[in-house]
């Protein structure tokens, strides 16, 4: 069909002449109608001429239909058509190789019809696309497009159903290929139809239809999905019945790519819309009046729906949205919108941690550094899920206020005694550094990890490593004066900017990610400190059981103060969990470390969430905090099995005191919760049961 007029005319003339001569020759030889027909059909050369005529007729028919539905083709359309036809013919030839057994004139005819229908679908697509480009859309255009679309979809439907029934009745054959091809064409026709409707609606209204692009995008996405599914099914069926369908590789790849692009577009546009709605304020009438109120993107006046960027430039929100799908810069001054709007959300987090911190710490630190607050923010979102369980304000962000001081004492004691290994000296320096509150933005991590290393080291394996189940790093205990990360409420605490700050490959993104990892590391180190605290409690419980003690005597636990545990008693629970005190930008170790405690925290959190009891959340915390005491009980039961009952009682008492002191520590800042464990609390009951068990054994 698409060829220069001269060759077509020549071909037509030639084929007609040839056919006439063939028929004339046959009639001349046989003199009668039937014998001549038989003669022609039996002679190969005559049949070739007839086929040539058929081919010519098809081309003429195609040209005729094109004239009816499209008028004359534009140059660009013609180019596209030639290119796509070339591919289609190549693929058809490939398909012939698969179905060479079915090869027959009918088969060729069917493929020709398919090719023609494909070409008409493409042309219809171009034409509908052209609607948005041309200012003059005539009624003829509408009539043509509508009738063509109706005809095409009808034909597709008929052919799909024909293929379906022939496959059902006569088994798998070439009809399978046709069925799928027409099904794909049907989706294309539907897509074009939706596009046409959208464009028509847009043309009818005076103002541009804002959501048209959105609808088109979603249509494309849906159709892309349907096509991908169709191709996948077709591929599977073909592989099972015939062989690998080489001829659909290219269209399948193109479809997949288009689908991926559509998906990407949808995501980007959704993000752009969300940013538009949340980040940028609407421009007021005064602001519009103050500047030249022409939107630089569409060159039209802005009356309503204008947005103001942080740099002060004003645009139509719809124009801006489509631009932000491509680039996150201001069109006028090219300022990076995301980077600029970064400082805006920062003022809100500092208020939360600061008062709690001041209350918790004996030496209130000066206001935490601004950058730190900033960096802690991204972190908030990471620990969102489990933190979200706790209502804001019920729990302070600093659940173990005295711990840092104790830790401090312990450190000094440790220093004064004997061990002056490298790690302990490191921890000493960090402790003194923390004492002077010289916390720079990067120092918390090495400080904390150095501390953790120092704590873990002296234990020396005197007590078997504590099971990890008893480590609930629910709330970070940040040693010394490092401001703790603000209590994250949920993922919304992580604003879009912070997320975006961590995306990308540029330097600041990498830095942001590393910062988050550092925050995680700080949390982990805090958890290690907490662990050591538990360990000290455990040690104090194990006083009476000589099997676990070596040579040091620990003062009996008192209600107010947890005894400073000596180095021998401190178990090495976290030596493998504690990341080496790295200061450089090694992402591997912080990445690997958070996995265990985090999942642990999540699992405990979900446990407490599953509890049907309507008790306030602090009780759940209690439960979690109590678990080390439980652990000590279990341990005590195991260790003190051969010992006398008197010792056992004592141990139980000490366990009681320790746990209560522990819980009092937990809630010393929290005024809303009771200090002592509730006797009816299921954990208490369980604990007593354990005690009784140890008695019996």
């Amino acid at each position, binding site marked *: 069909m698409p060829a220069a007029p001269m060759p077509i005319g020549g071909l037509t003339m030639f084929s007609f002449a040839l056919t006439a001569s063939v028929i004339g020759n046959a009639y001349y030889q046989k003199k009668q109608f039937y014998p001549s027909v038989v003669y022609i059909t039996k002679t190969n050369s005559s049949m070739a001429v007839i086929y040539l005529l058929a081919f010519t007729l098809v081309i003429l028919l195609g040209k005729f239909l094109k004239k009816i539905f499209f008028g004359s083709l*534009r140059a660009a359309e013609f180019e596209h058509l030639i290119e796509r036809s070339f591919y289609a013919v190549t693929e058809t030839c490939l398909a012939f190789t698969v179905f060479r057994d079915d090869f027959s004139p009918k088969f060729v005819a069917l493929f020709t019809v398919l090719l023609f229908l494909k070409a008409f679908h493409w042309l219809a697509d171009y034409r509908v*696309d*052209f609607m*948005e*480009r*041309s*200012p*003059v859309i005539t009624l003829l255009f509408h009539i043509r497009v509508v009738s063509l679309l109706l005809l095409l979809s009808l034909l597709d439907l008929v052919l799909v159903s024909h293929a379906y029934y022939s496959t059902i009745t006569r088994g798998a054959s070439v009809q399978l290929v046709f069925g799928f091809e027409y099904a794909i064409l049907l989706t294309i026709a539907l897509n074009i139809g939706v596009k046409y409707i959208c*464009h028509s609606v*847009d*043309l009818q209204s005076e103002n*541009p*239809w804002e959501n*048209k*692009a959105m609808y088109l995008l979603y249509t494309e996405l849906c159709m892309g999905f349907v096509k991908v599914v169709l191709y996948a099914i077709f591929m599977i069926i073909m592989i099972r019945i015939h062989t690998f369908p080489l001829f659909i590789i290219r269209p399948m790849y193109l479809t997949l790519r288009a689908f991926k692009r559509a998906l990407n577009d949808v995501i980007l546009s959704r993000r752009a819309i969300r940013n538009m709605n949340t980040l940028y304020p609407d421009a007021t009438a005064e602001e519009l009046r103050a500047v030249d109120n022409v939107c*630089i*993107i*569409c*060159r*039209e006046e802005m009356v309503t729906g204008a947005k103001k960027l942080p740099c002060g430039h004003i645009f139509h929100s719809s*124009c801006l949205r*489509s*631009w932000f799908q*491509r*680039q996150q*810069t201001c*069109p*006028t001054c*090219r300022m990076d919108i995301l980077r600029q709007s970064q400082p805006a959300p920062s003022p809100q987090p500092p208020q939360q941690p600061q008062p709690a911190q001041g209350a918790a710490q004996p030496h209130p630190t000066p206001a935490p550094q601004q950058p730190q607050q900033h960096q802690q923010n991204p972190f908030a979102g990471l620990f969102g899920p489990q933190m979200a369980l706790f209502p804001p304000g019920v729990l302070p962000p600093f659940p173990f206020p005295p711990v840092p001081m104790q830790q401090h004492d312990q450190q000094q004691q440790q220093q004064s005694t004997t061990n002056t290994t490298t790690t302990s000296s490191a921890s000493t320096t960090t402790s003194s550094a923390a004492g002077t509150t010289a916390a720079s933005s990067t120092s918390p991590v090495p400080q904390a990890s150095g501390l953790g290393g120092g704590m873990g080291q002296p234990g020396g394996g005197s007590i078997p490593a504590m099971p990890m189940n008893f480590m609930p790093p629910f709330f970070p205990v940040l040693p010394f004066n490092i401001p703790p990360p603000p209590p994250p409420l949920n993922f919304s605490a992580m604003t879009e900017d912070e997320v975006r700050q961590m995306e990308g490959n540029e330097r600041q993104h990498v830095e942001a990610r590393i910062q988050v990892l550092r925050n995680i590391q700080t949390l982990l180190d805090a958890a290690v400190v907490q662990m050591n605290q538990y360990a000290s409690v455990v040690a104090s419980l194990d006083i009476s059981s000589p099997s676990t003690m070596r040579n040091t005597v620990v003062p009996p636990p008192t209600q107010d103060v947890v005894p400073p545990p000596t180095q021998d008693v401190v178990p090495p629970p976290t030596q493998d969990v504690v990341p080496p005190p790295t200061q450089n930008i090694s992402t591997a170790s912080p990445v690997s470390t958070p996995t265990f405690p985090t999942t642990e925290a999540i699992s405990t959190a979900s446990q407490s969430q599953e509890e049907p009891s309507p008790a306030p959340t602090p009780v759940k915390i209690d439960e979690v905090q109590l678990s080390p005491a439980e652990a000590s009980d279990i341990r005590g039961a195991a260790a003190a099995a051969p010992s006398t009952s008197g010792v056992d009682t004592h141990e139980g008492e000490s366990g009681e005191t320790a746990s209560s002191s522990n819980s009092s520590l937990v809630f010393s800042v929290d005024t809303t919760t009771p200090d002592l464990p509730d006797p009816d609390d299921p954990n208490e009951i369980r604990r007593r049961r354990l005690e009784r068990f140890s008695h019996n054994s």
Partner: protein
Amino acid sequence: MAGRALKRLMTEYKQLTLNPPEGIIAGPTNEENFFEWEALIMGPEGTCFECGVFPAKLIFPPDYPLSPPKMQFTCEMFHPNIYSDGRVCISILHAPGDDPMGYESSAERWSPVQSVEKILLSVVSMLAEPNDESSANVDAAKMWRDDREQFNKIAERLVRNTLNIPYP
């Protein structure tokens, strides 16, 4: 979105017709398709391209002005920043992101603030002051640097070509 493109192109066309910049004429090739324009650019005065009238075509993408148009001279050109097939290589015609020469900062790339008028004015200034640092046509850049006389001769021939005056 694309209806917006059409509107913007019509607005630009109107502005270009009402206040045409000196030495530049531009408009759609036919009134039915606003996405293909023709432009005539006068060679800037005092340069080797003086007096020439150079025809070019501009092809706009469906998402104009979010993406830049393509510009191609339809006459023979010999210039360091014009490919031998007539395509113009200037940074404001490049979408941010793709960087064919690997040196352009995104600040000088396409943005919706640009317009047909700005593009054509940039092309005029490009004709006046070729940038031989990033050459689309290496031969032309070399000649521009080393053999200005020869370059001027070729330019004069081109100017005469566009005016249909035979070169002596």
